[in-house]
């Protein structure tokens, strides 16, 4: 059993705090051809994702919005990782991240996740899974070209 304090350190790792304070790709992508809005009605967090998709490849991606440290860090990390990936690769990453934050680091090949591995601490905090996955749900909705706002509820 890890103590509450260790869990906190796992959740709020340096990388997470750093990304939440200085999020990467915090912008609207110029000439975006895919976009979606995400909303967590429980906490009022909102974010939008814009993308430029060229054929099968995500050439550029940005996000904007308000949220907690976990949702901002997850969104920031996501934009860094899915850039220049194919739709299928982005989709596969989504699945892995989802498994990571819901089932914990033992459930996935953490090595293959690179920087995203810092989100593993979320699995100890069931109430925060939605925060970590909001950006990813929104990214997927943008890829699929769904118009309706994405909700974590």
């Amino acid at each position, binding site marked *: 059993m890890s103590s509450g304090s260790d869990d906190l350190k796992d959740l709020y790792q340096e990388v997470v705090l750093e990304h939440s304070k200085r999020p990467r790709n915090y912008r609207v992508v110029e000439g975006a051809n895919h976009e979606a809005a995400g909303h967590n009605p429980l906490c009022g967090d909102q974010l939008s994702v814009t993308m430029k998709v060229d054929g099968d490849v995500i050439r550029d991606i940005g996000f904007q919005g308000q949220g907690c440290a976990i949702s901002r860090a997850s969104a920031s990390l996501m934009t860094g990782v899915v850039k220049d990936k194919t739709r299928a690769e982005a989709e596969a990453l989504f699945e892995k991240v989802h498994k990571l934050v819901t089932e914990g680091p033992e459930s996935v090949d953490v090595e293959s996740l690179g920087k995203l591995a810092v989100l593993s601490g979320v699995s100890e905090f069931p109430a925060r899974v939605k*925060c970590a996955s909001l950006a990813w749900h929104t990214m997927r909705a943008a890829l699929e070209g769904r118009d309706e706002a994405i909700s974590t509820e």
Partner: protein
Amino acid sequence: MSSFDVQRVRQDFPLLHQEVRGRPLVYLDSAATAQKPQAVLDAIVRFYQHDNANVHRGVHVLSERATEAYEGARETVRGFLNARDAREIIFVRGTTEAINLVAQTYGRKHVGPGDEILITQMEHHANIIPWKMLCEQTGATLRVIPVDDRGELVLDAVDALLTEKTRILAVTHVSNALGTVNPVKELTRRAHAKGIPVLVDGAQSVTHFPVDVQDLGCDFYALSGHKLFGPTGIGVLYGRLERLEPMPPYQGGGDMILSVTMEKITYNRVPHRFEAGTPNLEGAVGLAAAIRYLQALGLDAIAEHDRALMAYATQALESVPGLRLVGTAREKAGVLSFTLEDIHPHDVGTILDREGICIRTGHHCAQPVMQHFKLPATARASLALYNTREDVDALVRGLHKVREVFR
């Protein structure tokens, strides 16, 4: 000569005595729902072990006892609110249902196209949405009394908003998001001067100070049992008899009728007309036990404890660097809403939770008032009669920890 001893009071609440996350539980979320004293738990168990039967129907002894318990609970609530007549007490599921009931009965009867319903910027969604729905059904318009930056109602704006088109004023007694105590007696006086009835949302008030509906003069008063240290699923709508008598029924079903043929239905008298179906008996019994428990402690003594602890907590929180109280009304009760630097309230809540401290984070089902303060969310600590200065001190230590994590 108050005999209020908070350590003894805590002994009456079994849930408080546990460790969470390896630390003693510090419960500062009573504005969401309050914990229950043993007396309430015992009353519910006793009811099921001895008196359970359906009410108002049977000729047998158990039905008599159950009816006595249920109608006795109505009388207990009457005394608690100082209503004139027990028929003015309607049992509902909670504050939300009480307000929906008034909107869909009184409202549907009296509100039409071009009419106005007046609420305030600081209402809980439960005192916004039922009126918004009524407006959509009838073609009426929702008008809003603004709040200022302290979180007080702008009283200068009220008279102009009470017009010949206003059909009802609905206002909260205590704001669940800010803690502001509103001058509902004065507002009622002003509305009545123009013949406008008043509904008061009392979900957050009755837990902190005595409420006398005759003194307030309001037409309707709504409250929830679970915030008043009673069970969930039970609440009260108080309505002045002369308002309730002409109101059409709310839901249809058993107990709300006098006679039924396929051609004609004669509705039952107040309050039964508004209580269709088998009521929440254990809820009413539990709520009455909660009220008797509070009365035994002394409502004035509780108010004094809550007031003193609120003052202590306000000062303690103001000492935390980077903390900003949201809602600094001159008169507040029970609720301390705040932000801490630019740390998101959810992160504050998660870190406090790991210290065993329960608070609420989010928009508190009061998004319009959050929009006034341009905040998506706040952290909210709320106090009750079982909270101590030590609880507040633990919160302050926890907030320092939050600042450390985010340094």
